[in-house]
């Protein structure tokens, strides 16, 4: 039987990696993926705790997270397409018009 601590630590590590990717990738799409990675890490923690404490709420929450992620991706990728169409590039550093 696997101790819950392992799951939680795994999720922490994944989250951290997600953060690193979020900060370091240049491609908008990849940054997006990093965010998805973080979401997944959180989901893992949810499920782990949910089963640990026999709480279904955790799983319900994961459900909602997934739904929201889906919506987010739909809109986000739409934005990405528009950006790519207008700026002819997917590099976040080329998307820097909005500043002081």
């Amino acid at each position: 039987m696997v101790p819950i601590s392992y799951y939680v630590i795994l999720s922490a590590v994944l989250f951290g990696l997600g953060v690193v990717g979020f900060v370091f990738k240049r491609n908008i799409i990849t940054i997006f993926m990093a965010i998805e990675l973080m979401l997944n890490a959180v989901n893992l923690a949810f499920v782990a705790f949910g089963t640990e404490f026999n709480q279904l709420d955790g799983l319900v929450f994961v459900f909602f997270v997934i739904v929201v992620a889906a919506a987010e991706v739909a809109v986000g990728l739409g934005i990405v397409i528009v950006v790519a169409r207008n700026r002819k590039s997917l590099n976040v550093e080329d998307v820097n018009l909005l500043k002081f």
Partner: protein
Amino acid sequence: MSIAMALFIVCGALTIFGAVGLILAKEPVHSALSLILVMVALAVLYLLLGAEFIAAIQILVYAGAIMVLFVFVIMLLNAGEEVRTNLSRLARWVGLPLGVFFLAEMGYLLFHEYAGRAAGAANAPVVASTTDLSMKLFTEFVLPFELTSILILIAVLGAMVLARKEPQ
């Protein structure tokens, strides 16, 4: 060492491998692939935790739909290799250390928290049956559920509006 443990080790390794791959890969498609790997491995972990429905949803929605969208967009925009512009100073000097620190912090912290649980966690995880889940979802959480449906609808419309070609 039990099957569960073996599975956990294998899948955990896969997830981390995938995550690292996501970061290191130059090609967006490779990143996407490694992310898919992470998701599938996570689904297996969910099964291991007894949350079959979530596992199935994870694959169906995340791997099967969301990531497909990603790949699709990548193909559509024909996103090539990532250009290696140099990192913004802030990102390098603040982001990198903080990210690492964050990782360490979380790891240390959670281990500190739950290391004691290792013994307590011996009880077999109850299989969260789909029936219970749906009961909860449609009684206690019915309002958020409906709201998410609206959210999805709005998202679809937004995506359409965004991706539509402006009529010249």
